[in-house]
């Protein structure tokens, strides 16, 4: 439900630094791809783009949105960039900004790592040479993203007419840190089975946290925990791990359960991953630059989605997902991706291979962000669960 007193900033990619939006007096509002709006975006762009961004554009075309003071886009993949382009065309009066995002996390250690010492090619001396020597690759992507966040912060200040105070920035950071902690606590009860409320409940919490102010989220999460009474573990179904890109409809989780599955944990960009960067807020973030660098580093280093990769560990995502699945002691995994998503599509073959070698049963599903598309997979999900039973 929309709160008319809030000034919303739309966002669509989980690399968006939510505390910065809050620090400027706005409420970050995730543009979730859930809508009854007619399907018109394919005509604006092309049908070959992922339904995640097409449905968001359909919302924009159909005005199925709260009033937005601005929208923060992130250049995380081609589809996201095209969404930003199309948005500017269909809603030319909206305030928008596009954040450019490095591809690699700042982890370049181990064999084959680039030396971090200065490189001084002979041609780069004298007038016109770059002012500083190359910085270590380790810092380069953080440094680049920090500067993008600095630009974002200035832009948000222009949109709001106020420069964020140090106190507001600290509050934004600490609120999201607290949201992380509370969601983590609730999630752990869900993993153990003692929450006993089902996956739809968890997804609903994530959706709320992504679309309402941190104060409201904290209130509802605290209320949830206050009324929580630990029940004996009541796993009702085959424990499974779910990964992929977007699956925001809580009903999808009920559907899994009705097929006999219990989604213990997920690695989805509409799930807990949205808040995973706020696990630690180091003390002593004394100035804006430190805050930008911290957010850049923690967003780039949190559990990556398929679009971010370390060139020194090609396709490591497959091992990482397997390790994650194993850490939850599940009996199998479901990979759910939306159609036309290049970042995931190109990594699924290796994910399948790694899971197969490790004898971790895996079911791959393709959807279009609607419950209808999930419903079409019901028989496959049931058969998978039955096989594991």
């Amino acid at each position, binding site marked *: 439900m929309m709160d008319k007193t809030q000034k919303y900033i739309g966002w669509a990619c989980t690399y968006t630094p939510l505390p910065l939006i809050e620090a400027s007096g706005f409420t970050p509002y995730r543009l979730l791809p859930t809508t009854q709006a007619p399907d018109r975006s394919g005509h604006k762009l092309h049908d070959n783009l992922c339904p995640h961004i097409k449905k968001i554009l359909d919302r924009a075309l159909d005005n199925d949105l709260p009033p937005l003071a601005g929208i923060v886009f992130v250049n995380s993949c081609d589809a996201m960039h*095209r969404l930003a382009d199309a948005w500017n065309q269909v809603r030319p009066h909206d305030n928008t900004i*596009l954040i450019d995002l490095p591809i690699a996390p700042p982890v370049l250690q181990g064999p084959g790592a680039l030396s971090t010492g200065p490189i001084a090619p002979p*041609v780069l001396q004298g007038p016109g040479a770059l002012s500083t020597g190359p910085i270590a690759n380790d810092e380069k992507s953080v440094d680049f993203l920090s500067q993008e966040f600095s630009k974002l912060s200035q832009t948000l200040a222009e949109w709001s007419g106020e420069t964020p105070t140090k106190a507001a920035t600290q509050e934004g950071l600490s609120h999201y840190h607290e949201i992380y902690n509370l969601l983590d606590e609730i999630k752990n009860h869900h993993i153990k089975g003692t929450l006993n409320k089902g996956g739809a409940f968890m997804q609903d919490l994530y959706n709320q946290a992504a679309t309402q102010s941190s104060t409201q989220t904290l209130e509802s999460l605290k209320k949830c925990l206050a009324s929580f009474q630990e029940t004996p573990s009541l796993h009702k179904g085959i424990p499974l791990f779910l990964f992929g890109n977007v699956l925001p409809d809580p009903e999808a989780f009920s559907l899994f359960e009705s097929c006999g599955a219990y989604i213990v944990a997920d690695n989805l960009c509409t799930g807990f991953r949205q808040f995973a960067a706020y696990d630690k807020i180091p003390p002593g973030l004394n100035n804006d630059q430190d805050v930008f660098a911290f957010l850049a580093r923690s967003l780039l280093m949190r559990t990556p989605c*398929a679009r971010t990769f370390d060139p020194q560990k090609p396709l490591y995502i497959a091992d990482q997902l397997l390790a994650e699945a194993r850490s939850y002691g599940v009996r199998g995994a479901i990979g759910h991706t939306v159609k036309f998503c290049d970042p995931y599509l190109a990594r699924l073959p290796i994910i399948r291979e790694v899971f197969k070698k490790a004898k971790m049963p895996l079911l791959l599903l393709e959807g279009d962000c609607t419950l209808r598309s999930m419903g079409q997979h019901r028989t496959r999900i049931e058969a998978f669960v039955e096989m594991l039973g």
Partner: protein
Amino acid sequence: MISQYFDSLISGIEAKIKEDPKAFHPRKKYTLEVARLGKRLYAREGPIASPMLQGPGALPTGPIALCGVTTPFDLLNAMGVTSCFVEFIGALLASSGTVAPFLEKAEHSGYASDSCGYHRAVLGASQEGLMPHPDFLIATSCPCSGGLATMENLAHHYKKDLFLLHIPQDLSKKNVDYLARQIMEMETFVTRHTGRPLDPDRLLKVIEKTNQARELMVEIYHLAQHIPSPNSGKELGNFAIVMALLLGTDAAIDVTRAYRDEFAARLHAGSSGVPQERLRLMWIQNRIQFKNSIIPDLEKNYQASVIVDELNSMTWDPIDPHDPYVGFAERAISIPFNGGVERRVQHLKKLAQDYKIDGAINPCHWGCRQGTGARGLIEEGLKEIGVPVLNLEVDCVDTRNYAEGQLKTRLGAFFEMLHSRH
């Protein structure tokens, strides 16, 4: 197998040159250099034992790198590395009519048939052992997410080191410096893999050659704008994107000079690329890479000539030999596929106006979220200046679903409409 294909292509063209050096068309020279590059890339077909290619048993090609589209190939040429962007191989496989089994192989291995055909072709070919075997790889974030994913897969497949260039979105000083630094680090990475540091004198010479070829390209594009145009539909297909691979070499200068001279001679003689040119067309993004009769058909039946391709334009300044990394960075950032669609549309509008274009064809290569993804926005942008766009539905690499008859019907209707406006 592929090496033999290039051998016979090279010897065929060379024989023709010998026969009649004067009747030699610049496109043949271009094909000859492409074939020579192909031969170098495939000179050591089959797995190799060691990436270090020095000492006895070293191969004449030197080290080989598979790259992303916006890699500074002249820097690699200066460092003695034979390289190409991987989509070049996808296009070669399509143009030689051998691509279908590789696409099938990729699809059977789980790569989605919805993804870009260039990448599927390359992934299939790597599994069949028919890609050039790289010593290392360099991925670039521009033009596309699909390309990055392909490079990550190839690095994993070949178990070779991968370097990543993040190409930022605009030409701000911060972005240029950021990329220039990455390119310097790339140079260190390459040195580490080849054992050969960059020779600064060689780099200076290479940059001089890059700039010479650049000047000639500017002249070619300028000449092609004449009415009627000395250019015709197939002559400059894939030109600038492939020339990027040859930058810094004599081959680039030879090829560009041949085109410049040929176009100047045609203008001097009052002849045009397409006799009685009536309609002037712009081709958006990629050409259809496999053999097809669309272009000859539209030239013959409608006197319509493709006189400019989106990528055949100069978007970068000469490289300053004393500050080359900045020049390389600016060049990579400047390509029309980088940045927002608004910039791309401005670029297309300018081309349409400079070349006095009547209409544009966008093949809408299936699987390309980067370029084709913006189809609707491009069409609307060009409509604003009165340039109609024909959007086709083609996979520029995959021959299997190609339905030329249907395309021709749509082209026919489009040209009727253009003729009626004329």
